[in-house]
C-alpha cells in the first residue's frame, strides 16, 4: 500500500494536519516563534517520504534544513562560512551535558530548536509507521484530542476549531485505514470504485456529524472548572481575583473590556445578612473608549468603627439600618466588600492590636482596603427614596452639585461616536427628570435585540468604541457591556454617572444559627458591574441595566402612603439568565445585503438555538414513529408486499420477489447464513414450516439465477408458493 496514488497522498495530508494541530498551540502558548518553519519542515519531510526519495537523500535534506534554519535564527555570518558550525557543535556538546545533568532550564535556544526538530522528525516517523505500516491511527488521534482538550481547559488556547479540525481529519484517516485493513484482510483487489463507494458515505457521515456537533447546543460542563481549583490547591489560598482576562471573577484592571468569559464557581466570600444585597468593591470614573480607569487616587486612613468617609446618603432620604457580616474565603485579599449605604466597619477579625484596626480607603474609587481579614461586620443603611424627590432634578444646577464634580462624572472621550448621544436622546425624549431619563435608558436594554451572553462577546478592535460596538453592532454581552453603555449614554446627555464593580447577592446557603440572618455564598460567577447615577439631594442611586439582573431600590411612590407601593427591598436577583429566545440581529445596513456566509452561519446557529426544542422534539417524535413502525413491520410489511406483487406479471419478478422473501424470512427469524446455499436454506425453511413450498420456489429461482433459464409463465405458476410463504412470515 506504500504507493504514490491519490489516497496515499490524502493520508499524508491528513497526517500532516493532525501533526500540525500539535504545533498550533505551541506558538500561542510558549515563546516559540517562527512556527511556520517547523510546519514547513513537516511539509518537506512528508512530501519527500511520499515521493519516496531515497532515505539517504531524505536524511541529508532534513539535516541541511535543520542546520540552515538554526543558522538563520541564531548566527550572523554567512551559512557557508562554516565556522558557525564549530560554535554550534560546541554549544551542542555543552547542552548535551546539561541535558544529562537534567538542567533543562539552562538549555540554549538553538539546542531547543534543534530538539524540537528532532522531536518532529520522530513524530513524523511514527505517523508514517502508523499510517502506512500499522494502518492504525487511533492512539495518535486520541492523544491529539487529549492534548487539545487539556490545553483548551488549562490554558488560554481556544481549541474550538482545533477540535473540529482534528475530529474531521482524524475520523477520515481512521475510516480510510479501516478500508485498507479490510482490503488487506480479505485479500480483495482494491479498485478505485471500491474506494469511492467507501469514501463518499464516510465523508458524508463525518461531515454530517461534525455539522451537527458544531451547530447543536451544548450543555455547560457538569463539573466546576478545574483550573481555579487546581491553582488554589497549588498556591494555597492563592489570589483568585484577577484570574486572567478571560476568566470571570473580580479583576482590578478594566482598561480593556470585552471578550468572552468563562465561568468560575469558586467562592469568594460568605455574607450573613437579612436579605440579598449587591456588594460593592469599587467605582470607576473615567471612560476611555475601551474601558474604565480610575480618575485618580486619594487615599484616606480611617479606623474600624469610624464613619466611613463616603459621600453618604443625604438626610433627606429615609433609611433603615441593617448589619451584615462578611467572611472572605481568601484572607490575603485586601479588598473589603460592602453594600451601598455603608456606615461603619466594625469587628474586624483577627484583632491583632487589641484595639481598632486601621483601614485605608481610596475616596475617589470608594475602594476600602484592609489586610488579612477573616471576618468583618458592616453597619449600613438601606435608603427609601421618595419618587418626587428623585424626579426633582431636571437639569444641572450648580447649587446642587459642585461644578468640577459634575464635569468629572459627565466626561466622555472626545472621539466618542455621535450616534450614542443621538440614540440616548431618542430614548429619553419626552422625559424631563434625570431619574426618568435614567430609567428609560435602563429599560431600553430590556428590548429583545439585546441579549445576555458571556461567550460570543466581541473584543473591540483598535478603531472601535466599546460602547458603540455593543449598542449598534454586536448587541450581545454581559454586565460590563450593559453597565458601561448605560453610564456612558447618560453622560452624553449630561447626567453624572459612575461605573460600579462588585458582586451580586450570591446564592442563599442557609439560615444563620440564630435564624435571624441568612447566609449567602458569593462566587466568582457573581462578579458584576452596574451603574450609579448622581441625583442632587439623593446621592448616588444604583441602576441595573443588565438583562436578567435586578437591583431595585426602594421607592416610595405615594407621597405619604408609606409602604403601599413599596418594591421589595432586595428582590432575588436572577443570577444566570437562561438563554432567552433570541431574535435575529437586525441587519439594517445596506452593505450586508449581499450573501454573507458568516451571516448565514449565524442565522443557522440562531435558528438551531431558538428552535432546538422543537427540532429535538420533532426528530425524537419521528424517530419514535419510525422505531415503532420498524418494530412492528412484521405485522404490516408482508401485506404491502403481497399487494405490490399481486399485479406483477413478468417472469423476471421472481428475482426481486425471491430476494424480498429472503429478507422477510430473515426478519421472521429464519436466518440464512452467508455460506448457506439456497436449496439448503430452502430445506431448512420447509422443515420449519412443514411444507415443500420453499424448495419448489427455490428450484425455480435457482433455474433462473444459475441457469438464466426462465420458462414462460413461471412466475404465475410460482406466485402462489411465494404468497403462501410471505403469509407465513406475518408475525
Amino acid at each position, binding site marked *: 500500500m506504500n504507493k504514490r496514488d491519490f489516497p496515499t497522498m490524502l493520508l499524508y495530508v491528513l497526517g500532516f494536519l493532525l501533526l500540525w494541530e500539535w504545533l498550533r498551540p505551541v506558538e500561542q502558548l510558549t515563546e516559540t516563534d517562527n512556527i511556520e518553519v517547523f510546519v514547513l519542515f513537516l511539509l518537506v519531510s512528508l512530501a519527500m517520504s511520499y515521493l519516496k526519495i531515497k532515505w539517504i537523500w531524505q536524511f541529508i535534506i532534513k539535516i541541511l534544513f535543520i542546520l540552515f534554519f538554526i543558522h538563520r535564527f541564531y548566527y550572523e555570518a554567512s551559512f557557508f562560512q562554516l565556522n558557525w558550525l564549530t560554535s554550534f557543535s560546541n554549544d551542542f556538546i555543552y547542552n548535551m551535558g546539561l541535558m544529562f545533568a537534567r538542567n533543562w532550564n539552562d538549555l540554549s535556544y538553538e539546542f531547543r530548536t534543534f530538539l524540537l526538530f528532532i522531536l518532529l522528525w520522530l513524530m513524523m516517523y511514527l505517523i508514517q509507521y502508523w499510517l502506512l505500516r500499522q494502518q492504525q491511527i487511533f492512539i495518535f488521534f486520541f492523544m491529539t484530542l487529549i492534548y487539545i482538550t487539556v490545553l483548551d481547559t488549562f490554558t488560554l488556547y481556544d481549541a474550538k476549531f482545533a477540535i473540529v479540525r482534528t475530529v474531521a481529519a482524524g475520523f477520515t484517516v481512521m475510516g480510510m485505514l479501516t478500508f485498507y485493513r479490510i482490503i488487506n484482510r*480479505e*485479500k480483495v483487489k482494491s479498485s478505485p470504485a471500491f474506494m469511492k463507494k467507501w469514501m463518499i458515505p464516510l465523508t458524508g457521515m463525518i461531515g454530517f456529524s461534525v455539522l451537527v456537533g458544531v451547530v447543536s447546543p451544548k450543555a455547560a460542563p457538569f463539573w466546576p472548572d478545574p483550573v481555579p481549583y487546581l491553582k488554589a490547591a497549588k498556591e494555597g489560598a492563592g489570589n483568585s481575583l484577577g484570574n486572567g482576562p478571560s476568566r470571570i471573577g473580580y479583576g482590578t484592571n478594566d482598561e480593556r473590556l470585552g471578550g468572552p468569559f468563562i465561568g468560575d464557581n469558586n467562592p469568594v466570600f460568605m455574607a450573613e445578612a437579612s436579605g440579598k444585597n449587591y456588594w460593592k468593591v469599587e467605582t470607576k470614573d473615567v471612560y476611555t473608549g475601551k474601558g474604565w480607569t480610575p480618575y485618580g487616587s486619594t487615599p484616606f486612613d480611617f479606623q474600624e468603627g469610624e464613619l466611613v468617609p463616603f459621600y453618604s446618603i443625604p438626610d433627606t432620604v429615609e433609611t433603615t439600618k441593617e448589619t451584615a457580616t462578611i467572611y472572605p474565603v481568601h484572607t490575603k485579599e485586601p479588598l473589603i466588600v460592602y453594600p451601598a449605604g455603608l456606615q461603619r466597619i466594625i469587628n474586624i477579625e483577627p484583632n491583632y492590636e487589641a484595639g481598632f484596626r486601621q483601614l485605608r480607603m481610596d475616596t475617589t474609587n470608594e475602594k476600602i482596603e484592609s489586610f488579612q481579614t477573616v471576618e468583618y461586620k458592616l453597619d449600613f443603611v438601606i435608603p427609601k427614596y421618595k419618587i418626587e424627590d428623585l424626579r426633582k432634578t431636571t437639569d444641572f444646577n450648580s447649587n446642587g452639585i459642585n461644578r468640577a464634580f459634575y464635569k468629572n462624572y459627565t466626561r466622555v472621550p472626545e472621539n466618542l461616536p455621535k450616534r450614542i448621544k443621538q440614540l440616548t436622546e431618542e430614548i429619553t425624549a419626552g422625559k424631563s427628570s434625570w431619574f426618568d431619563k435614567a430609567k428609560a435608558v435602563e429599560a431600553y436594554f430590556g428590548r429583545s435585540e439585546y441579549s445576555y451572553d458571556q461567550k460570543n462577546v466581541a473584543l473591540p478592535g483598535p478603531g472601535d468604541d466599546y460602547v458603540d460596538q455593543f449598542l449598534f453592532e454586536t448587541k450581545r454581552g454581559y454586565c460590563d457591556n450593559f453597565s458601561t453603555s448605560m453610564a456612558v449614554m447618560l453622560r452624553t446627555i449630561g447626567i453624572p454617572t459612575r461605573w460600579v464593580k462588585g458582586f451580586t447577592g450570591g446564592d442563599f446557603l442557609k439560615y444563620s444559627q440564630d435564624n435571624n440572618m441568612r447566609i449567602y455564598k458569593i462566587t466568582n460567577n457573581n462578579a458584576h458591574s452596574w451603574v450609579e447615577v448622581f441625583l442632587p439631594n439623593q446621592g448616588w442611586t444604583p441602576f441595573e441595566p443588565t438583562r436578567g439582573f435586578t437591583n431595585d431600590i426602594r421607592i416610595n411612590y405615594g407621597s405619604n402612603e408609606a409602604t403601599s407601593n413599596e418594591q421589595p427591598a432586595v428582590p432575588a436577583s436572577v443570577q444566570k439568565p437562561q438563554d432567552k429566545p433570541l431574535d435575529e440581529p437586525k441587519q439594517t445596513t445596506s452593505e450586508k445585503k449581499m450573501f454573507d456566509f458568516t451571516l448565514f452561519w449565524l442565522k443557522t446557529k440562531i435558528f438551531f438555538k431558538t428552535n432546538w426544542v422543537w427540532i429535538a422534539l420533532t426528530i425524537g417524535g419521528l424517530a419514535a414513529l419510525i422505531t415503532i413502525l420498524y418494530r412492528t413491520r412484521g405485522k404490516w410489511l408482508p401485506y404491502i408486499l403481497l399487494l405490490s406483487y399481486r399485479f406483477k406479471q413478468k417472469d423476471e419478478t421472481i*428475482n426481486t420477489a425471491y*430476494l424480498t422473501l*429472503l429478507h422477510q424470512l430473515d426478519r421472521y427469524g429464519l436466518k440464512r447464513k*452467508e*455460506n*448457506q*446455499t*439456497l*436449496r*439448503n436454506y430452502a*430445506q431448512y425453511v420447509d422443515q420449519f414450516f412443514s411444507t415443500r413450498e420453499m*424448495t419448489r420456489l427455490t428450484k425455480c429461482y*435457482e*433455474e433462473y*439465477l*444459475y*441457469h*438464466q*433459464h426462465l420458462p414462460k409463465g413461471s412466475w404465475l405458476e410460482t406466485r402462489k408458493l411465494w404468497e403462501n410463504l410471505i403469509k407465513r412470515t406475518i408475525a
Partner: protein
Amino acid sequence: MVKEQINPTIDKILANIEKVMIGKRDVAELSLVALLAGGHVLLEDVPGVGKTMMVRALAKSVNASFRRIQFTPDLLPSDVTGVSIYNPSEMEFQFRPGPLMGNIILADEINRTSPKTQSALLEGMEEASVTIDGVTHKLQKPFFVMATQNPIEYEGTYPLPEAQLDRFLLKMKMGYPDLHEEMEVLNRAQRIPPIEDLYPVIDLDGLRILQEEIKDVYVDDTIKRYIVDIVNRTRGHESVYLGASPRGSIALMKAAQAYAFIYDRDYVVPDDIQYLATFVLPHRIILKSEAKFEGISAEEVISRIVARVPVPVQRFVK
C-alpha cells in the same frame, strides 16, 4: 444435501458398483465425477479397504480395459509406458505398450516408486500421450488413473511434489466401512466375489459421449465468480503458504459440471461447488509449517474458507 434425481445411466453404473462395493457411494460418485470430467483421482488410504475392487467394478461397468500397476522402488519408466523392442524378423523396433496403455488404471502406492517413474505416469496423465524413443504414442480415450497413496508409511517413499499432485482432479479418502457395512462385507466374502457377474452398463463410446455432454453443462457467471472467490481466498489465507492456482479453479469448475451432470442437472449450483471444494482444492495448497504444527489440515482450511465465502444469491452484475 438435498437428495436429487440421478442421471439414469449414472444410476445404473452406481448400482453396478454397489453390487460389489458395500457403502462408499460417495467415493464411487466422486470417482465417476473424475472419470466423466476427464480427470484422475488420488486415493489416500490404507490397504484393504476396497480400492481395487471399486476401480475394477467401475472399469467393468463402462466396459473399459483395466490395468493395474503396483509401484515399487525398482520400477522403471518403461515398465509403465512400454518399451520398443527390436524385432529381428521385421528388422525394426516394435513398440510393446506398457500398462499405461489401458483405459482405467490403478496406480497402487504411487509414492513408493522413484520420481522418474512417477513423472512418466504423471506426464501421461497430463498430456494423454507418452513419448518413447522419440515417437509419441497417444493414450487411449477415455483414460482414467486412480492412484493410491499410503498415508501411514513414509519410510522409503518418494512423496509426490505439490506440482504433481495438481494433476489429480480429486483427492479423497476411502475410509473404513461402518459396522453394518463391514458385516455385509463378511457375508459376501463367504461366497465368490461377485465382480465376475458384473455386466457393462455402457461401452467406451457411450462414455465418450457422456464426457462430451458434460462440457455443455451450464456454468453461470455467478457460479464462476463464486469459484474464483473461493480459490482467491486460498491465496491470502493466513495458514496457507501457497494458494491454489488457476488450474485449481478450472478443476473445480469441471468437477462441478460432472457432478451436476450426475445429478441430472444441466447447470451448476453453489451446492456442487461447496461439496467438491474439499476434494478438489486441499491437495493444491501448501500449508505453512505453523499451521501444520497446530494440526490444521488442508481440508479444514478449505472448509473454513468455504464457510466464509458468501453464496451468490443474486444476479451477478458486472
